[in-house]
């Protein structure tokens, strides 16, 4: 995080139990993170007040004291409105602002236009609710501000996050037990992947590729010279494929043909490549485009390693099953590829590789497998095996001694910019996407079990729009955006406001939602704007596709395809 200097949730799950105010902003934790929500429920039963800020009146909002149903993509405006109200009501934590932050004057100036009236007009949230949220957040003893992809999956996702960080800085709701900023991660090891350097600008253990000192550590350890250039993000790779600079791609454990925005464009790009390698536990739709498929073990139960969760806790992953057929551990696949490239790497266990990481990452240095085993996981930073664990980050911002306080946290001066995909007369409805309780990502894993409460591929429509469009529940509609069109059954959802639609992204074979979404990427995080698509809905007599489309793509003949197995020569 640019603001505080460490990319991770600032609080532990247990802290939310002691919070007296919880704000779920763009997070439907009740469905998307049910066990994290258990901790919030403890606080709710102790009397904590809850706000849900979400275009939809979600399952999480059903537990909230107040629901702020904002228009999609107006989060920055709402945050400015809340900030201005805190300032004008004299509720700024002035001591904390003076001690811990820079850029307060500029922030005050940026807030100034956002009166309650202006904010209310821009966001669709009643002024009184904005005022209440501002006052409750500023006055709370310990406030937790939680968000998920509702904040980040926008063309300005990074700005959205900074807008929320501003509120915590303004009120001192960070760096204390129970007060913090909590981005709840969508996938089991998003945090760990980033921490281990699976970010184009990073090396493992929070090292910067562009920093010669950081590189030197790795060059020394590995006895190689490292390229100083940053890598490409996923969306930059997509651009590079369009421009023809990127002609070979190696995909590990991703299904971009179904998970990325504007899937038609993604499929076209992959087909145009000279060489595509896909390493996965399934023959996914993406794998069906590959020249070489490397079957791998399921990381969570067929191999050893670690995952890092949303509270920065590194936990051991253990092998419970023998992998099927010729599937190989990711570590072994990479080693064999290196070998074929002429580098003989030693055969190493997951623990040996982890110890190598510990040698270069001070934040992980104390986390031996033994300690991880004993404690049921350990939160970073944990430099010393005997040292204390850090339940929350940024306590330093409260230190009076400038040396201990360290780098001050800057207020983010950002602009409110509406979603790229504009509504007009042709595409008058706003589609947002997300996950339901029983489903996950492109359904490759969650599709494996028969959930009795799975709603499946459908488009949720407000009762008002159902009437306006003359629709009954279950009738088939054609949903079209400027990029694509899909058929879906209509489902009435009283939690939606008129003009807003919702589709789950977990059934791409039946309903390719990302054929509709726009590839409008955030300039910093490069996350696409999955949450805001302009669409139209038409009633149709067409039938829903019966067979799943994935079967066709898998059967499609690709003469050059080689279902490689890593053990052929190994």
């Amino acid at each position, binding site marked *: 995080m640019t603001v505080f200097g460490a990319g991770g949730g600032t609080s532990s*799950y247990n802290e939310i139990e002691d919070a007296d105010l919880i704000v779920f902003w763009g997070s439907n934790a009740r469905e998307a993170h*049910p066990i994290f929500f*258990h901790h919030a429920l403890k606080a709710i039963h102790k009397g904590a007040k809850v706000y849900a800020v979400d275009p939809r009146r979600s399952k999480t909002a059903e537990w909230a004291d107040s629901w702020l149903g904002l228009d999609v993509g107006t989060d920055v405006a709402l945050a400015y409105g809340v900030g201005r109200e805190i300032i004008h009501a004299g509720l700024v934590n002035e001591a904390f602002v003076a001690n811990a932050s820079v850029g307060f004057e500029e922030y005050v100036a940026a807030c100034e236009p956002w009166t309650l009236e202006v904010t209310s007009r821009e966001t669709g949230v009643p002024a009184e609710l904005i005022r209440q949220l501002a006052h409750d957040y500023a006055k709370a003893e310990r406030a937790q501000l939680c968000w998920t992809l509702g904040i980040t999956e926008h063309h300005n996702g990074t700005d959205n996050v900074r807008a929320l960080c501003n509120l915590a800085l303004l009120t001192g709701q960070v760096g204390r037990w129970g007060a913090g900023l909590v981005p709840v991660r969508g996938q089991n090891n998003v945090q760990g992947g980033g921490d281990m350097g699976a970010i184009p600008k990073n090396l493992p253990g929070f090292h910067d590729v562009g920093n010669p000192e950081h590189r030197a550590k790795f060059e020394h350890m590995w006895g190689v010279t490292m390229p100083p250039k940053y890598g490409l993000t996923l969306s930059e790779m997509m651009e590079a494929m369009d421009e023809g600079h990127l002609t070979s791609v190696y995909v590990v454990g991703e299904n971009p043909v179904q998970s990325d925005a504007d899937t038609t464009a993604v499929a076209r790009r992959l087909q145009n490549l000279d060489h595509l390698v896909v390493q996965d536990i399934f023959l996914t739709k993406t794998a069906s485009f590959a020249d070489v498929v490397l079957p791998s073990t399921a990381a969570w139960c067929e191999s050893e390693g670690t995952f890092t969760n949303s509270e920065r806790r590194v936990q051991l992953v253990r092998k419970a*099953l023998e992998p099927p057929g010729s599937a190989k551990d990711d570590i072994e696949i990479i080693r064999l590829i290196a070998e074929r490239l002429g580098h003989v790497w030693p055969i190493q266990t997951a623990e040996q590789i982890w110890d190598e990481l510990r040698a270069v990452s001070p934040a992980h240095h104390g986390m031996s497998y033994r300690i991880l085993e004993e404690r049921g996981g350990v939160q970073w930073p944990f430099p010393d095996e005997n040292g204390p664990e850090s339940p929350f980050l940024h306590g330093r911002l409260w230190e009076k001694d400038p040396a201990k306080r360290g780098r001050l946290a800057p207020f983010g001066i950002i602009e409110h910019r509406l979603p790229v995909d504009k509504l007009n007369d042709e595409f008058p409805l706003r589609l947002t996407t997300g996950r339901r309780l029983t489903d996950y990502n492109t359904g490759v894993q969650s599709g494996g079990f028969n959930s009795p*409460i799975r709603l499946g591929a459908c488009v949720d429509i407000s009762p008002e729009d159902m009437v306006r469009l003359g629709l009954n529940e279950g009738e088939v509609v054609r949903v079209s955006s400027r990029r694509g069109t899909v058929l879906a059954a209509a489902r009435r959802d009283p939690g939606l406001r008129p003009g807003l639609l919702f589709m789950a992204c977990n059934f791409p074979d039946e309903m390719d939602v990302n054929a509709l979404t726009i590839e409008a990427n955030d300039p910093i995080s490069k996350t696409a704007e999955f949450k805001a698509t302009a669409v139209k809905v038409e009633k149709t007599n067409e039938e829903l596709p019966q067979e799943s489309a994935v079967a066709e793509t898998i059967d499609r003949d690709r003469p050059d395809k080689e279902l490689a197995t890593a053990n052929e020569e190994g």
Partner: protein
Amino acid sequence: MNVHYTGATDTPVRQITITIDGKEVSVPEGSTILTACNAAGKDTPTLCYGDTLTPKNACRVCMVELEGSRVLVPSCSRKVQPGMVVKTDSERVRHSRRLVLELLGSSVDLSTTPRIPEWMERYDADPDRYGERAGESRRRDVHEPGEHHAGDGSVADTMCQPIKIDNDLYVRDYSKCILCYKCVDACGSQWQNSFAIQIAGRGFDSQISTEYAAELPDSACVFCGNCVEVCPTGALSFKSEYDMREEGTWDESQQTQTTTVCTYCGVGCNVNLHVQDNKIVKVTSPHDHDIGHGNLCIKGRFGFSHVQSRKEDGDG
């Protein structure tokens, strides 16, 4: 700061000493007599006690004799106080445990309750002395208040009723239910807060039920399986286990348990994978882990099949 710092103040916890069966034992203040019994190596039968739940005092099988107390006390809920003198194997305690086990054994199918044969033998319990069991009742879900007709005593009334199989994830066999409330508490305000089940009916007609006895897919159930996790008798069981028991292939001696991390969202719940013949046969969750406390959601609990379907497809 200690391991997984909890925010509580670091006041040292006082040790309380009590006497159990003539021997002194010390446990931290706030502990229960059951904890002290465990510390003293006294094996105490429990059914309704749950290590992640508030004591319900429902089953009465863990009762002990406490000096100065007119009645026996439930060890799972009574907190220790300095100088308590407790007897765990006196004639009164043995008689009480025997009666509880016999009454449960005569009315409930305890065939899948762990350790029952051992306890029955230890306390000389003979459930059969209440006579032959009455047959299966198909009306337990639908009776009206006050409708119950007491039997003539020639047969032992039972909980026996048809098994409810209304989904592919878990099965309810209320013939095995001892009404301990653990599932209700796990589903309710103590953990899941879905409130899908409650006790319906009163007296011997009581039973756990969804609203209007609706089938699970039509109820408020979200299929987290946290009720199955705490069920002490196997009245609630995973469909995978149920099917294997029916086939006669369920064999715990051939199973391994491995704790790993769930493959779905970023919360990082720990899962115990029970594996037999290289297949996951059920998923539980460690009760002493402070992320989930034994709880999971539907994906963590049941979303493992994708791994096995790969196996059936060969190298998938």
